[in-house]
């Protein structure tokens, strides 16, 4: 992963985050009720948030590698986001789905939700850190055990 190589590296991540968070607020995806209304088919508008965002990023992911070799602030090559497939994608996706269906909130939307004033979302953020810690603790123990091969991402 990239190191800080350029004075504008962090400012750009900050600006990108602001646009990202403003969009999550504007779309109401930062509101758990709206996500739950989507999951229960009462308002399907949320499809346009994820689909719209994926189309915009998809254009950039497809076009940029053809017109430039390397990103200016890191010198890294433009690559698509490709992760290896294994059963963790299904297991993790299933656990995430249960959590998303219970709470109506996902990580990025939770950060933005805090920004729109939703201090109640700290419950969810505390849970997310707890969950991330629990799986990290468990996987660290497994990876540190001498007989088990690591390498899962």
């Amino acid at each position, binding site marked *: 992963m990239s190191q800080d190589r350029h004075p504008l590296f962090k400012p750009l991540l900050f600006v*990108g985050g602001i646009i990202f968070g403003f969009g999550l607020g504007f779309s109401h995806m930062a509101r*758990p*009720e709206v996500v739950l209304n989507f999951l229960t088919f009462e308002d399907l508008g949320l499809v346009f*948030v994820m689909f719209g965002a*994926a189309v915009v990023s998809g254009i950039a992911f497809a076009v940029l590698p053809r017109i430039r070799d390397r990103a200016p602030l890191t010198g890294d090559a433009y690559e698509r986001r490709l992760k290896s497939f294994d059963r963790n994608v299904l297991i993790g996706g299933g656990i995430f789905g249960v959590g998303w269906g*219970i709470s*109506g909130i996902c990580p990025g939307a939770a950060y933005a939700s805090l*920004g729109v004033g939703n201090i109640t979302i700290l419950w969810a953020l505390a849970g997310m850190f707890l969950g991330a810690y629990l*799986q990290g603790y468990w996987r660290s123990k497994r990876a540190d055990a001498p007989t088990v091969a690591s390498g899962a991402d």
Partner: protein
Amino acid sequence: MVTEPVALQVAADLFPNGISRYAVGGLLVGLGTVVIYLGTGISAGASTFLESTLSYVSGQSRFQRYVGSRDWRVVFTLGIVLGGFLFALTVQSGLVSSSLYQAGTTGQLHQLGGFTFWTTNVQPWRLVLGGTLVGIGTRIGKGCTSGHGVCGVGSASKTSIVGVATFLAVAIGTAQIVAALGVTP
């Protein structure tokens, strides 16, 4: 023409709040992702922040892989929080209005210093329990709604498309069951 009013009625049922706020919001989420990708080549996902930030306080070997990226992930996340805050100060507070924005009826609004802030009515136990499972699942499943949903699907990654299909289907089933059990909100 009879079909057109029927089509409009169906659209009104499926999209009671219209689609413009969703589409505009989605375009902005995508734009934020593209700005970062353009400058750095990074496909930024939101859930890695959870593990990378834990590396500041935990020596667990799993978190150490994120030591190199943890600083900028904090910056990215603070940007997301600030972006939501700027939305609250402008559009949510009514100081900036747009025909593309439809205010909702969910949750509760609070007036503070001339600005409008919003809090959820979803019960804390749902947020804690759901949040914990989100923390476990996104990290085991290699991504969340932004990493898989925006960057991965945008990359036409088969792994991400399967990941999104999995968590979306399970979330729909779960939310329907919770609603059927009479839990509200």
